[in-house]
């Protein structure tokens, strides 16, 4: 039982981080139709900026996190301006390659700035654990789950209760009609890139305290978030969150009860199965992909 609880909570926490990253994918995809492959490196950059703010600037931890989120929102906008806006009318392949280019640039900047040696971002809760049904659960995992829940709720409200959210969804469903309605496409894409950047930083500061920070920090979460987005049908917040939790749980429980050797592979097996059997995603009702 303890083992199950432990793996379950870990799976949910991991899935929660994937969800935050995947929501960034979703936002940008909705507003622009592209997948931003720089998302993983934005996660890493967010963690490094938080480390810099906490150690070099000696800011209190939450201040450092806030700096990271704000800085990454700005970086998101810069990526939109330099890697997306100039080529937005070009083929989708060009745009995706451009985001990959942005990813490489970010990675190179991190290596030049902070180097390749692993480092650490402190978490507000240290390594404290709570016992739940006999299982020792790191408090940081509970924090990750809690923050993600708040974040998902906030995004849901943003999407469904604000004009900005309606405009993003309108843009996602019919770009030409959205333009005819006066929705400022360029501004929407800047805002969503900025929001997605902030979300990446949030994922970065949530996950970094659970492990050493290296330049690869965001790569795994990005891959799993991508799988989660495919699972969720790249359409709705609910779909993406369910997809992300499924990925986290499959990884942990598959690793724990089937064979640990393939823990990294289960999520992708699941993704391929879903693509084969239900291409619109688990909760998807429509297939509309520019990728």
């Amino acid at each position: 039982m303890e083992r199950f609880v432990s793996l379950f909570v870990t799976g949910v926490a991991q899935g929660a981080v994937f969800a935050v990253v995947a929501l960034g994918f979703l936002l940008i995809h909705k507003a622009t139709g592209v997948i931003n492959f720089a998302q993983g490196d934005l996660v890493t950059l967010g963690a490094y900026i938080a480390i810099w703010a906490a150690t070099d600037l000696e800011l209190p931890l939450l201040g450092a996190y806030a700096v990271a989120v704000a800085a990454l929102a700005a970086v998101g906008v810069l990526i939109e301006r330099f890697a997306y806006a100039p080529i937005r009318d070009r083929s989708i392949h060009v745009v995706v390659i451009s985001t990959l280019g942005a990813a490489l640039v970010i990675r190179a900047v991190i290596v030049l700035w902070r180097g390749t040696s692993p480092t650490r971002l402190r978490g507000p809760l240290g390594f404290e654990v709570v016992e739940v049904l006999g299982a020792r659960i790191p408090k940081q995992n509970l924090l990750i789950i809690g923050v993600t829940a708040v974040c998902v709720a906030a995004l849901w409200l943003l999407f469904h209760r604000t004009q900005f959210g309606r405009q993003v969804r309108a843009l996602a469903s019919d770009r030409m009609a959205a333009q005819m309605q006066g929705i400022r496409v360029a501004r929407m894409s800047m805002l969503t890139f900025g929001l997605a950047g902030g979300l990446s930083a949030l994922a970065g500061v949530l996950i970094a305290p659970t492990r050493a920070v290296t330049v690869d920090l965001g790569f795994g979460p990005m891959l799993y978030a991508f799988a989660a987005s495919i699972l969720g049908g790249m359409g709705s917040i609910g779909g993406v969150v369910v997809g992300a939790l499924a990925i986290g749980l499959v990884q942990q429980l598959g690793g724990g009860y089937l064979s640990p050797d393939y823990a990294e592979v289960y999520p992708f097996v699941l993704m391929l199965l879903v693509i084969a059997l239900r291409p619109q995603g688990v909760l998807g009702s429509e297939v509309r992909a520019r990728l």
Partner: protein
Amino acid sequence: MGSLLALSLLAAACGDDDDGDDAAADESAAGGTTTTTAPDYELEEPLRIVAVISEPGGSDPNAVPDYVDGIEMAIAEINEAGGLGGHPIEFEAVETPAVGDEITNSLNLALEEDPDVLLGPVSSTAVLAMAERVDAAGVPMIHNTTEPKVAGDGEAGSPWIFGNRPPNDGAARIAARYAVEELGAEEIGQLYVNTAFGQSGNEAQDAEIEELGAEVAAERSFEFNATDLTEAVLAMEDVDVVLDWGTPATVGLAVNTLAQQGLADVPHIGPGSVGFSFFADIVGDESLLEGVLGVVDCNPADDDREGVEAWHDAFVEEYGYEPSYGAAQMYDAVHIVAAIVNEAQAADPETIRQGLESLDGHEGICAIYSNENNVLQHSSVVVRFEDGSLVTEKTYDDVG
């Protein structure tokens, strides 16, 4: 034809004079305390040493000063005592990044300095990127990595390339042997990263564990960028010892997770990276380090061999920080080359290459060095964290 004859004569001369090497080496081994009297001969040109190592403030933000400080400390000693063959040793350090395309560029710059011997690099990526060019250039190199592909029988091996770190699989075996023989472990847990480093370490441990009659009770591997080891650590619940051949990041994560899962008391033996200064930062909480073990190349801070403590103190006095094993190894590398030059009374690349090839029993600060398969060091030390510093538990001289 003439040069070939000369070469073989030189080779013969060097080969015959192994004992002489040792004598010269012994003198220098005492390091910071003893001065070497310069033998009475004249070199036509001074010995030129060029390092391909990143220094702090250069291209690699994580560069540590240890390597170049070790080199400069040795050169200063030798030059103060009159240099080699009537000349002070000349030294240049060429900024060399740990990764990326600039590595080749650094090597080119280094070769333009007309070196008699290259010291470094200190990363596997860099030494692999340089190997072919170094072989073609015909300049001996002493790199500070465990990269097996540039060992004598490795696919990128060259008669010009030597390493002064003990082999990875040997160090991994030592972890297993220490667990069984010193800690009395019968049921052993293994963690390792899915890279050449982790896998070859794991295989070496498997063989050693079987040989010693113990048993692998749980085994878990993970990607180099694993974000969570809960499942792997939970699998270690009933083992006597955890052998962990991961990256510094994953070993740190395993230390944290073991503590969170209430398994901090299970002995946890990691690879050499446990001895890196940033390892404590990764773990994040110094108290979690207590009792963590690592297999490092040497531990100059706690080594009772003659002269080591004096060297350690002199280094701390001069540079103001604890020297890593890398500092000691690069210090030793200079003295190895100096001993070869003094013995052969020549400082050309081929002489140095032959001297390294026939190196046998040079006593240095970090180890006693002999060449085998173009690997010069064959000892490792098991260390344990105690009050934030590394305490030597046991030294092994037969690492392979």
